């Protein structure tokens, strides 16, 4: 296509808008990350307004690097993102394939399936952590209690009683503990974002070339082989996009972390930034720069993996 000017022109509005949107805050963040800047200080009031005279060099970075939660936050960011990506892509593909063929009530099932995606993150977190996962009042607690009651009842039953006597009481799991709070976040976000994956994969499956499938059938491919060799490659680009978009979203999870356990055990970089931002803007900004760097590393890594499928 010889005329390249128009395409360039069409790109410019988006590019310019995003450029402004990125440059202005980013440069301010960069600036703050190199100066002493706190919101409120009784001991050093001069730090409370951003000014070059408070120049600090890499001091904020140093402080952040030495923070006990910094590495943990990076690790959590990655673990949470990767687990969610893994689960949503797997579930997304399975479900999309499952409902790709017509069956009675498919429309309704589709609606049921994609509904979680419409739920606001805060609602999602509150709903899960309080009403479902709570070890006493949530459905988990209630379920565990009733199972224990049933087992208790069976212990006294004739014949099988002895068998049930061997069973221990089931302990409910607390999902707000240091050890489990990341799992709670993964569960709730997976629940919410699997529909996104389903949605994208579903749309993409619709465009799968029927003739290719026919050819494969005649080539003797089993259902599994067709899935493996045709559907999966066909889903390459949608998977790429699901992974990229979700990675970006989940690297900045905040509400879920806050609501589940206030960062206890599941603190990620944005949450760490939020904690600093309560007062120490300099440190928050430095952490922000770290977060940008981390996100870019993740993105470059992902792009390596999916970039080819994307542009083909």
């Amino acid at each position, binding site marked *: *296509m010889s005329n*390249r000017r128009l*395409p360039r022109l069409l*790109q410019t*509005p*988006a590019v310019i808008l*995003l450029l402004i949107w*990125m440059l202005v*805050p*980013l440069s*301010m*963040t960069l600036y703050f990350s190199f100066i002493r800047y706190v919101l409120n200080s009784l001991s050093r009031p001069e730090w409370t307004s951003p000014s070059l005279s408070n120049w600090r060099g890499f001091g904020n970075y140093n402080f952040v690097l030495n923070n006990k939660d910094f590495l943990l936050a990076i690790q959590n960011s990655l673990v949470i993102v990767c687990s969610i990506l893994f689960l949503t892509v797997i579930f997304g593909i399975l*479900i999309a394939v*499952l409902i790709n063929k017509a*069956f*009675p*009530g498919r429309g309704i099932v*589709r*609606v049921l*399936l994609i*509904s*979680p*995606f*419409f*739920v*606001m*993150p*805060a*609602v999602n977190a509150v*709903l899960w952590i*309080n*009403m*479902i996962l709570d070890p006493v*009042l949530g459905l988990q607690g209630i379920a565990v209690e*009733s199972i224990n009651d049933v087992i208790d009842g069976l212990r006294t039953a004739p014949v099988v009683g002895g068998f049930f006597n061997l069973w221990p009481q089931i302990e409910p799991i607390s999902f707000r503990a240091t050890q489990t709070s990341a799992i709670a976040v993964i569960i709730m976000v997976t*629940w919410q974002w699997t529909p996104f994956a389903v949605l*994208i994969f579903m749309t993409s499956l619709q*465009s*799968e070339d*029927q003739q290719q499938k026919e050819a494969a059938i005649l080539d003797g491919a089993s259902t599994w082989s*067709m899935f493996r060799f045709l559907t999966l490659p066909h889903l390459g*680009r949608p998977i790429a*996009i699901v992974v*990229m*978009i979700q990675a970006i979203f989940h*690297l*900045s999870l*905040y509400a879920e972390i806050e609501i589940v356990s206030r960062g206890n055990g599941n603190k990620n*970089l944005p949450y760490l*930034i*939020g904690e600093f931002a309560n007062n120490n803007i300099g440190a*928050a*900004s430095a*952490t922000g720069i770290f977060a*940008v760097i981390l*996100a870019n590393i993740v*993105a470059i890594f992902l*792009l390596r993996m999916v970039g080819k499928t*994307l*542009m083909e």
Partner: protein
Amino acid sequence: MAIVAQSTRRGRISRATFAWIVGLLFFFPIFWMVLTSFKTDADAVKPEHLFFFTPTLENYLNMTENYDYWRFAQNSIITAVFATIFALAVGIPCAYAMAFNPARGTKDILMWMLSTKMLPAAAVLYPMTFLTKSLGLFDTKFLIIVVLMLINLPIVIWMLFTYFKEIPKEIIEAGQMDGVNTWGEVREILIPLAWGGIVSTALLCFIFCWNEAYWTVRLTTTDAATLSKLIEGNRAPEGLFFGRLSAVSTAAVGPIVVLGWFCQKQLVQGLTFGAVK
């Protein structure tokens, strides 16, 4: 078209059953939330009232009485609709250009666009608050629309880009041979062919706008406050709150869920054309 892989009757039935089970499982938390919203706060935590209780509208009445639900809802609708429209208006031409006239830098531009989403919001809260206040834009719908549009633009472009990529290049070429100009190409070929993709992108963008809860909470006071701000105020009120919370949540997600239901056909009908030799 044809029946690819006729499955056995039993296979079909078990597939349907399984799909229904998965669907219901996924929907259950929402069902639970809606159900709870009709319980009193006290009933909400009583195991004996899990399913059997006297439904009450109390929570909803409380909500509309104590909070200006409709104002929040109206703001949500206005900001999400306009942000979506603008995002598409800017995103479609851009994605079109990148999908069909890829230059060497296209991949990098795409990547860079996405990277604009990576700046953690918390890190720029103060700059943003300061800037918008000094521009006099703080707590205006215009600001929220612009912000929502900007944070979703990269996603919109990415999604559209992938949908456009699926359109056989030859069809676009045929259009060029038939003498369409760029605008005609977009209107006559691209949009009809990628309609499903565009609708799902629009809907996704709308959902993201609707659910956005960082800037909409922090860059507004009252005039432009959306439903996410209502949620922020209600996610941990004092006392027993499952019922109240469920009602507010149901009211906040209700409109979008219903919208999603109406659009789901459009969403999946999407790109149902096969490549025609």
